Protein backbone atom coordinates (compact mmCIF):
# COMPACT_ATOMS: atom_id res chain seq x y z
CA UNK A 1 0.00 0.00 0.00
CA UNK A 2 1.42 3.39 -0.94
CA UNK A 3 2.04 6.08 1.65
CA UNK A 4 -0.74 8.19 0.18
CA UNK A 5 -3.25 5.39 0.17
CA UNK A 6 -2.24 4.37 3.68
CA UNK A 7 -2.64 7.93 4.93
CA UNK A 8 -6.04 8.10 3.31
CA UNK A 9 -6.97 4.92 5.15
CA UNK A 10 -5.93 6.56 8.43
CA UNK A 11 -7.99 9.61 7.54
CA UNK A 12 -11.04 7.51 7.04
CA UNK A 13 -10.67 5.36 10.14
CA UNK A 14 -9.51 7.86 12.72
CA UNK A 15 -10.70 11.21 11.33
CA UNK A 16 -7.14 12.48 11.10
CA UNK A 17 -6.56 15.63 9.18
CA UNK A 18 -4.69 14.99 6.00
CA UNK A 19 -0.92 15.31 6.56
CA UNK A 20 0.48 18.58 5.27
CA UNK A 21 2.58 17.08 2.51
CA UNK A 22 -0.20 14.98 1.10
CA UNK A 23 -2.27 17.84 -0.14
CA UNK A 24 -1.89 18.31 -3.87
CA UNK A 25 1.01 20.63 -4.68
CA UNK A 26 0.00 24.24 -4.91
CA UNK A 27 0.93 26.00 -8.13
CA UNK A 28 2.59 28.83 -6.21
CA UNK A 29 3.95 27.32 -3.02
CA UNK A 30 4.70 23.73 -4.10
CA UNK A 31 4.53 21.31 -1.19
CA UNK A 32 5.38 23.87 1.51
CA UNK A 33 3.08 23.38 4.50
CA UNK A 34 0.83 26.09 5.95
CA UNK A 35 2.98 26.13 9.08
CA UNK A 36 6.15 26.61 7.10
CA UNK A 37 4.68 29.47 5.09
CA UNK A 38 3.39 31.01 8.32
CA UNK A 39 6.86 30.74 9.85
CA UNK A 40 8.37 32.46 6.79
CA UNK A 41 5.88 35.32 7.09
CA UNK A 42 6.69 35.68 10.79
CA UNK A 43 10.43 35.61 10.05
CA UNK A 44 10.04 38.30 7.39
CA UNK A 45 8.25 40.57 9.86
CA UNK A 46 10.93 39.83 12.45
CA UNK A 47 13.63 40.60 9.90
CA UNK A 48 12.04 44.01 9.33
CA UNK A 49 12.31 44.75 13.05
CA UNK A 50 16.01 43.86 13.01
CA UNK A 51 16.43 45.87 9.80
CA UNK A 52 14.88 48.90 11.52
CA UNK A 53 17.30 48.58 14.44
CA UNK A 54 20.33 48.08 12.20
CA UNK A 55 19.36 51.00 9.94
CA UNK A 56 18.87 53.25 12.98
CA UNK A 57 22.29 52.14 14.20
CA UNK A 58 23.80 52.87 10.77
CA UNK A 59 22.21 56.32 10.59
CA UNK A 60 23.37 57.24 14.11
CA UNK A 61 26.87 55.92 13.51
CA UNK A 62 27.19 57.41 10.02
CA UNK A 63 26.00 60.80 11.22
CA UNK A 64 28.18 60.95 14.33
CA UNK A 65 31.32 63.08 14.34
CA UNK A 66 32.79 60.67 16.85
CA UNK A 67 31.42 57.19 17.56
CA UNK A 68 33.91 55.62 19.96
CA UNK A 69 35.08 57.33 23.11
CA UNK A 70 32.30 59.90 23.51
CA UNK A 71 32.02 58.77 27.13
CA UNK A 72 35.05 58.71 29.41
CA UNK A 73 36.36 55.20 30.09
CA UNK A 74 34.13 53.59 27.49
CA UNK A 75 35.85 50.51 26.03
CA UNK A 76 37.41 51.08 22.61
CA UNK A 77 36.33 47.72 21.20
CA UNK A 78 33.99 44.83 21.99
CA UNK A 79 36.36 41.87 22.00
CA UNK A 80 36.17 40.50 18.47
CA UNK A 81 37.87 37.17 19.18
CA UNK A 82 35.40 36.22 21.91
CA UNK A 83 32.44 37.15 19.74
CA UNK A 84 33.94 35.28 16.78
CA UNK A 85 33.81 32.24 19.07
CA UNK A 86 30.11 32.88 19.69
CA UNK A 87 29.58 33.19 15.94
CA UNK A 88 31.29 29.85 15.39
CA UNK A 89 29.06 28.37 18.09
CA UNK A 90 25.90 29.51 16.30
CA UNK A 91 27.18 28.20 12.96
CA UNK A 92 27.83 24.81 14.61
CA UNK A 93 24.33 24.81 16.10
CA UNK A 94 22.89 25.55 12.65
CA UNK A 95 24.64 22.48 11.28
CA UNK A 96 23.38 20.33 14.15
CA UNK A 97 19.86 21.65 13.44
CA UNK A 98 19.95 20.54 9.79
CA UNK A 99 21.37 17.19 10.92
CA UNK A 100 18.38 16.82 13.29
CA UNK A 101 16.09 17.64 10.39
CA UNK A 102 17.86 15.08 8.17
CA UNK A 103 17.60 12.41 10.87
CA UNK A 104 13.89 13.15 11.33
CA UNK A 105 13.22 12.91 7.59
CA UNK A 106 14.92 9.50 7.67
CA UNK A 107 12.75 8.48 10.63
CA UNK A 108 15.64 8.11 13.07
CA UNK A 109 14.19 9.37 16.37
CA UNK A 110 17.30 8.74 18.48
CA UNK A 111 19.60 10.66 16.14
CA UNK A 112 17.06 13.48 15.86
CA UNK A 113 16.98 13.89 19.64
CA UNK A 114 20.78 13.75 19.85
CA UNK A 115 21.26 16.47 17.23
CA UNK A 116 18.51 18.60 18.80
CA UNK A 117 20.30 18.32 22.16
CA UNK A 118 23.54 19.48 20.51
CA UNK A 119 21.64 22.45 19.05
CA UNK A 120 20.14 23.28 22.44
CA UNK A 121 23.62 23.13 23.97
CA UNK A 122 24.79 25.61 21.32
CA UNK A 123 21.98 27.99 22.27
CA UNK A 124 22.66 27.70 26.00
CA UNK A 125 26.39 28.27 25.50
CA UNK A 126 25.69 31.31 23.33
CA UNK A 127 23.49 32.79 26.07
CA UNK A 128 26.21 32.07 28.63
CA UNK A 129 28.66 33.83 26.31
CA UNK A 130 26.39 36.84 26.10
CA UNK A 131 26.04 36.93 29.90
CA UNK A 132 29.83 36.85 30.13
CA UNK A 133 30.13 39.63 27.57
CA UNK A 134 27.67 41.91 29.39
CA UNK A 135 28.17 41.06 33.05
CA UNK A 136 31.35 39.00 33.29
CA UNK A 137 29.32 36.10 34.70
CA UNK A 138 32.11 33.64 33.94
CA UNK A 139 34.97 35.90 34.91
CA UNK A 140 36.72 32.96 36.57
CA UNK A 141 37.14 31.41 33.10
CA UNK A 142 37.60 34.39 30.79
CA UNK A 143 39.24 36.85 33.23
CA UNK A 144 37.07 39.70 32.00
CA UNK A 145 34.52 41.55 34.12
CA UNK A 146 32.21 42.36 31.24
CA UNK A 147 31.38 45.40 29.13
CA UNK A 148 29.17 47.03 31.77
CA UNK A 149 32.03 46.93 34.24
CA UNK A 150 34.28 48.33 31.52
CA UNK A 151 32.02 51.39 31.25
CA UNK A 152 29.74 50.59 28.32
CA UNK A 153 26.48 51.65 29.95
CA UNK A 154 23.07 51.55 28.27
CA UNK A 155 21.79 55.09 27.70
CA UNK A 156 25.11 56.85 28.13
CA UNK A 157 26.03 56.93 24.46
CA UNK A 158 24.43 56.06 21.13
CA UNK A 159 27.10 53.40 20.72
CA UNK A 160 26.27 51.70 23.99
CA UNK A 161 22.50 51.99 23.55
CA UNK A 162 22.40 50.61 20.02
CA UNK A 163 24.84 47.86 20.98
CA UNK A 164 22.73 46.62 23.90
CA UNK A 165 19.43 47.11 22.07
CA UNK A 166 20.43 45.05 19.03
CA UNK A 167 22.48 42.34 20.74
CA UNK A 168 19.99 41.81 23.57
CA UNK A 169 17.08 41.69 21.09
CA UNK A 170 19.02 39.00 19.27
CA UNK A 171 19.75 37.32 22.61
CA UNK A 172 16.00 37.22 23.31
CA UNK A 173 15.60 35.36 20.03
CA UNK A 174 18.29 32.87 21.04
CA UNK A 175 16.52 32.40 24.38
CA UNK A 176 13.10 31.85 22.83
CA UNK A 177 14.66 29.66 20.13
CA UNK A 178 16.32 27.52 22.78
CA UNK A 179 12.98 27.11 24.60
CA UNK A 180 11.33 26.25 21.29
CA UNK A 181 14.05 23.64 20.65
CA UNK A 182 13.62 22.14 24.13
CA UNK A 183 9.88 21.70 23.51
CA UNK A 184 10.46 20.20 20.05
CA UNK A 185 13.19 17.92 21.43
CA UNK A 186 10.86 16.67 24.18
CA UNK A 187 8.09 16.03 21.69
CA UNK A 188 10.52 14.23 19.38
CA UNK A 189 11.67 12.06 22.28
CA UNK A 190 8.01 11.23 22.99
CA UNK A 191 7.65 10.04 19.39
CA UNK A 192 5.44 12.83 18.07
CA UNK A 193 7.52 13.24 14.93
CA UNK A 194 8.10 9.62 14.00
CA UNK A 195 7.52 8.26 10.52
CA UNK A 196 9.27 11.15 8.80
CA UNK A 197 6.84 13.72 10.21
CA UNK A 198 9.42 16.47 9.97
CA UNK A 199 7.22 19.55 9.53
CA UNK A 200 7.52 20.91 13.09
CA UNK A 201 11.25 20.27 13.16
CA UNK A 202 11.66 22.06 9.85
CA UNK A 203 9.69 25.06 11.18
CA UNK A 204 11.77 25.14 14.36
CA UNK A 205 14.87 24.87 12.17
CA UNK A 206 13.77 27.85 10.11
CA UNK A 207 13.55 29.95 13.27
CA UNK A 208 16.93 28.74 14.52
CA UNK A 209 18.69 29.36 11.19
CA UNK A 210 17.12 32.81 11.10
CA UNK A 211 18.69 33.53 14.50
CA UNK A 212 22.03 32.45 13.05
CA UNK A 213 21.50 34.51 9.89
CA UNK A 214 20.71 37.66 11.88
CA UNK A 215 23.77 37.13 14.07
CA UNK A 216 25.95 36.97 10.95
CA UNK A 217 24.80 40.51 10.11
CA UNK A 218 24.97 41.77 13.70
CA UNK A 219 28.49 40.37 14.11
CA UNK A 220 29.63 42.17 10.96
CA UNK A 221 27.94 45.53 11.44
CA UNK A 222 28.24 45.92 15.22
CA UNK A 223 31.48 44.15 16.06
CA UNK A 224 33.70 44.03 12.99
CA UNK A 225 33.34 47.39 11.26
CA UNK A 226 36.23 49.44 12.63
CA UNK A 227 35.82 52.84 14.28
Amino acid sequence: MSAHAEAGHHDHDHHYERPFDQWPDDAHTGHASMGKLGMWIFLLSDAMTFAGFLLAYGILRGGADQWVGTVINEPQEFGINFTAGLTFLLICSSVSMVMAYAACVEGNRKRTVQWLLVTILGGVLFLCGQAQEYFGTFEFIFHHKGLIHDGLIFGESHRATTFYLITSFHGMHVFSGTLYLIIICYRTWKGKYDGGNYNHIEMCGLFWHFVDLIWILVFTFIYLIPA
Partner: protein
Amino acid sequence: MSQDHDQAHITDTSRVHVDRKEYWFIFLMLFILTVLEVGVVFVEGISKGHIVAVLTIMALVKAALVGLFFMHLNHETKIVRWGVILPLMVPFFYAAVLIADAIVRLA
Protein backbone atom coordinates in the same frame (compact mmCIF):
# COMPACT_ATOMS: atom_id res chain seq x y z
CA MET B 1 -7.16 14.17 19.29
CA SER B 2 -4.33 16.57 18.60
CA GLN B 3 -1.92 14.07 20.12
CA ASP B 4 -3.11 11.40 17.71
CA HIS B 5 -2.88 13.85 14.90
CA ASP B 6 0.77 14.52 15.69
CA GLN B 7 1.72 10.89 16.01
CA ALA B 8 0.03 9.12 13.19
CA HIS B 9 1.37 10.66 10.03
CA ILE B 10 2.96 8.41 7.53
CA THR B 11 4.77 11.02 5.58
CA ASP B 12 5.99 10.99 2.02
CA THR B 13 9.60 12.09 2.44
CA SER B 14 10.69 11.15 -1.05
CA ARG B 15 10.48 14.77 -2.24
CA VAL B 16 12.40 16.16 0.74
CA HIS B 17 15.90 17.37 0.08
CA VAL B 18 18.51 16.02 2.50
CA ASP B 19 22.18 16.18 1.59
CA ARG B 20 24.59 15.85 4.51
CA LYS B 21 27.67 16.45 2.34
CA GLU B 22 26.17 19.72 1.21
CA TYR B 23 25.41 20.72 4.82
CA TRP B 24 29.01 20.06 5.92
CA PHE B 25 30.34 21.90 2.87
CA ILE B 26 28.23 24.95 3.73
CA PHE B 27 29.44 24.74 7.34
CA LEU B 28 33.03 24.74 6.07
CA MET B 29 32.33 27.75 3.86
CA LEU B 30 30.73 29.63 6.76
CA PHE B 31 33.70 28.83 8.99
CA ILE B 32 36.23 29.98 6.37
CA LEU B 33 34.30 33.18 5.69
CA THR B 34 34.10 33.94 9.43
CA VAL B 35 37.86 33.46 9.79
CA LEU B 36 38.43 35.71 6.76
CA GLU B 37 36.10 38.36 8.20
CA VAL B 38 37.98 38.47 11.47
CA GLY B 39 41.30 38.40 9.59
CA VAL B 40 40.37 41.35 7.36
CA VAL B 41 39.75 43.56 10.38
CA PHE B 42 43.29 43.03 11.64
CA VAL B 43 45.02 43.58 8.29
CA GLU B 44 46.75 46.94 8.25
CA GLY B 45 46.94 49.27 5.29
CA ILE B 46 43.40 48.78 3.98
CA SER B 47 41.10 51.81 3.93
CA LYS B 48 38.00 51.74 6.09
CA GLY B 49 35.77 51.99 3.04
CA HIS B 50 37.29 48.88 1.53
CA ILE B 51 37.05 46.98 4.80
CA VAL B 52 33.35 47.87 5.14
CA ALA B 53 32.68 46.81 1.54
CA VAL B 54 34.51 43.49 1.91
CA LEU B 55 32.88 42.72 5.28
CA THR B 56 29.41 43.55 3.94
CA ILE B 57 29.86 41.32 0.89
CA MET B 58 31.15 38.43 3.03
CA ALA B 59 28.25 38.83 5.49
CA LEU B 60 25.73 38.80 2.65
CA VAL B 61 27.34 35.69 1.15
CA LYS B 62 27.17 33.95 4.55
CA ALA B 63 23.54 34.99 5.04
CA ALA B 64 22.71 33.74 1.54
CA LEU B 65 24.38 30.37 2.24
CA VAL B 66 22.34 29.93 5.42
CA GLY B 67 19.10 30.98 3.71
CA LEU B 68 19.52 28.96 0.53
CA PHE B 69 21.00 25.74 1.92
CA PHE B 70 20.17 25.45 5.64
CA MET B 71 16.72 27.01 5.26
CA HIS B 72 16.27 25.17 1.94
CA LEU B 73 15.13 28.23 0.01
CA ASN B 74 16.86 26.87 -3.08
CA HIS B 75 14.43 23.95 -3.03
CA GLU B 76 11.29 26.06 -2.73
CA THR B 77 9.21 27.25 -5.66
CA LYS B 78 10.29 30.47 -7.37
CA ILE B 79 7.39 32.37 -5.81
CA VAL B 80 8.25 31.30 -2.26
CA ARG B 81 11.98 31.90 -2.82
CA TRP B 82 11.59 35.39 -4.27
CA GLY B 83 8.70 36.13 -1.92
CA VAL B 84 11.25 35.79 0.88
CA ILE B 85 14.34 37.26 -0.80
CA LEU B 86 12.80 40.41 -2.29
CA PRO B 87 11.36 41.83 0.97
CA LEU B 88 14.70 41.11 2.66
CA MET B 89 16.45 43.19 -0.02
CA VAL B 90 14.34 46.27 0.72
CA PRO B 91 16.30 47.29 3.87
CA PHE B 92 19.58 46.98 1.94
CA PHE B 93 18.14 49.11 -0.85
CA TYR B 94 17.02 51.68 1.73
CA ALA B 95 20.50 51.63 3.30
CA ALA B 96 22.03 52.19 -0.15
CA VAL B 97 19.73 55.19 -0.71
CA LEU B 98 20.69 56.65 2.68
CA ILE B 99 24.41 56.16 1.99
CA ALA B 100 24.07 57.74 -1.46
CA ASP B 101 22.16 60.66 0.06
CA ALA B 102 24.85 61.17 2.68
CA ILE B 103 27.60 61.07 0.05
CA VAL B 104 25.81 63.65 -2.13
CA ARG B 105 25.16 65.99 0.80
CA LEU B 106 28.72 65.74 2.09
CA ALA B 107 30.25 66.29 -1.37
